[in-house]
């Protein structure tokens, strides 16, 4: 059995966007590390992927779906979900960015629940396409879900895979674009304008679903409705807000990098306490 399909024992706990966000804030503060905005941005997407119907790590050893966090700098959101699912050891998430830990800023495949090490952008979709192609060749019904960032769509290598997947009708490949409009040094529209992003994917032969990336019900419904027989691969253009859930971070470029001060940390936690889910 390939390494990536190893069996993982699960002691499940509800993976909610709020719990993911709380862990992101707590652990990034403890570690004094940034990339908070882009982790908060995908909390709802990760929660839905782990909680609703997708056969992700720990749920079915042989034919489970594979998940590639191509935007590896959101790893803390993924660690939070793995923690809540009981795939990480109980205290392991608290080793985030500690010397000697396996939980770095970007995810490494040596960690249970991580299939592919990522961090360098423009690589993950091809990994996912390889998995999707392997599924077809072997007749085993697993799928590949790849979460990419909108700025990652600047990478030419991503579009190489976009063309391949459409040509080979890899419907079991699902890309999710975290379309938060923010990249390292500014707004995507000011750096390299991606508009109209959905049209670009559509023109390359993908089935495009433009959705609210902060609406778990819509995410869940869209994922549940995907056709996975031979046909166009699917992309969810998930419109999101970087820093979502923490008022002073939302849409602010600085939270791509900055760690939290004590005051802002307290305020962020307070806001999350008061939030709905």
């Amino acid at each position, binding site marked *: *059995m*390939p*390494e*990536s399909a190893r069996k993982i024992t699960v002691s499940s706990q509800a993976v909610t966007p709020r719990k993911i966000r709380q862990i992101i804030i707590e652990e990034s503060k403890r570690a004094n590390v940034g990339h908070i905005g882009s982790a908060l941005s995908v909390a709802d997407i990760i929660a839905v992927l782990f909680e609703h119907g997708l056969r992700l790590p720990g749920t079915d050893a042989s034919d489970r779906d594979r998940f590639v966090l191509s935007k590896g700098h959101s790893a803390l959101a993924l660690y939070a979900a793995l923690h809540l699912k009981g795939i990480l050891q109980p205290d392991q998430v608290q080793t985030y960015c500690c010397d000697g830990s396996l939980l770095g800023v970007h995810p490494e*495949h040596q960690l249970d629940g991580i*299939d*592919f*090490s*990522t*961090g*360098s952008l*423009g*690589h993950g*979709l*091809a*990994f*996912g*396409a*390889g*998995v*999707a*192609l*392997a*599924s077809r*060749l*072997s007749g085993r019904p697993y799928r*590949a879900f790849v979460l990419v960032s909108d700025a990652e769509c600047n990478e*030419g*290598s991503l579009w*190489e*895979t976009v*063309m*391949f997947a459409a*040509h080979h009708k890899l419907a079991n490949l699902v890309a999710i674009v975290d379309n938060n409009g923010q990249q390292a040094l500014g707004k995507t529209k000011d750096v390299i304008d991606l508009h109209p992003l959905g049209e670009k994917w559509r023109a390359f032969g993908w089935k495009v679903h433009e959705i609210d990336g902060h609406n778990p019900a819509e995410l869940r419904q869209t994922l549940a409705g995907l056709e996975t027989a031979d046909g166009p691969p699917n992309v969810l253009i998930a419109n999101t807000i970087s820093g979502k859930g923490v008022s002073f971070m939302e849409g602010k470029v600085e939270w791509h990098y900055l760690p939290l001060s004590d005051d802002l940390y307290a305020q962020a936690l307070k806001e999350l306490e008061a939030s709905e889910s």
Partner: protein
Amino acid sequence: MRLACTRALTEIARSDPRILLLTADLGFMVLEEFSEAHPTRFFNVGVAEANMIGLATGLAASGYVPYVYSIATFASMRGYEQIRNGPILHKLPVRIIGVGGGFEYGHAGITHHALEDLTIARVQPGLTVVAPADHEQASAAIRATYDLPGPIYYRIGKRDDYVLPGLGGRFRLGRIETVRDGDDVLILVLGSIAAEAIKASDILSRKGIQANVSVVSSLRPAPVEDIHRMLKRFPLVVTVEEHYVDGGLGSLVAEIAAENGTCGRVFRCGVRTPPSATCGGEACLREVNGLSARSISDSVVNALKEFGE
């Protein structure tokens, strides 16, 4: 070596369903034997080498053994970061076949000349690096290594009609193969240029110099023990490679000599000049870069004069 590799792979694939072949739109009249025998296991991914390596990574992580094929420059450099972060980082059995080492794509120009592929391959821990000297050895190398657990880079030549005298298709990972014995000087050679090294040893022989010619076809794992043993025997070793002198075979031998404290001299024959726009076929470019049989034999004579006993 191209057809030899295709033929070996086609045969291995008959009994091993994990074998896949991917090409980035190259291999006309080379890959057909495989694609016709195993049509569902052959993919032309288009002109997209980075994607090809990424796909191969995902396939290998799912239990397959994908071979990816391109011209050596594109195979090694275009997807280099994908190779590093994919099969090397994940320790997966992706096989990268780079065709046309050195000046084999002569008239095609510098974009097609692979002069640093071995250097960049050799610095990646966990990447096996194999560079056969003729098509029989290429076939043997493919067969001997197809089941290795980690990634492999094969630098193979284009010609399938040349057999290096004395080699007999021998290949052993991490070892060298002596193809001509002699006591006066050691020539260590890698790849298709071995044909010129043999001719050079003929020229030297007529001058009364008996060269030992040994083929290095496994750069990683490096044939450390074999080379160390030879360095103890020969005070002068001349390395010959169709590659920049930095980082390839000559560098490897110099490293082994220095690390083992072996006394003696290493003279490196290889490309030392910056890329130029001069057009030429392989023979012309070998001549220009001091890699013709005549140039190699001259280098050996000069090195013996300078460093010899």
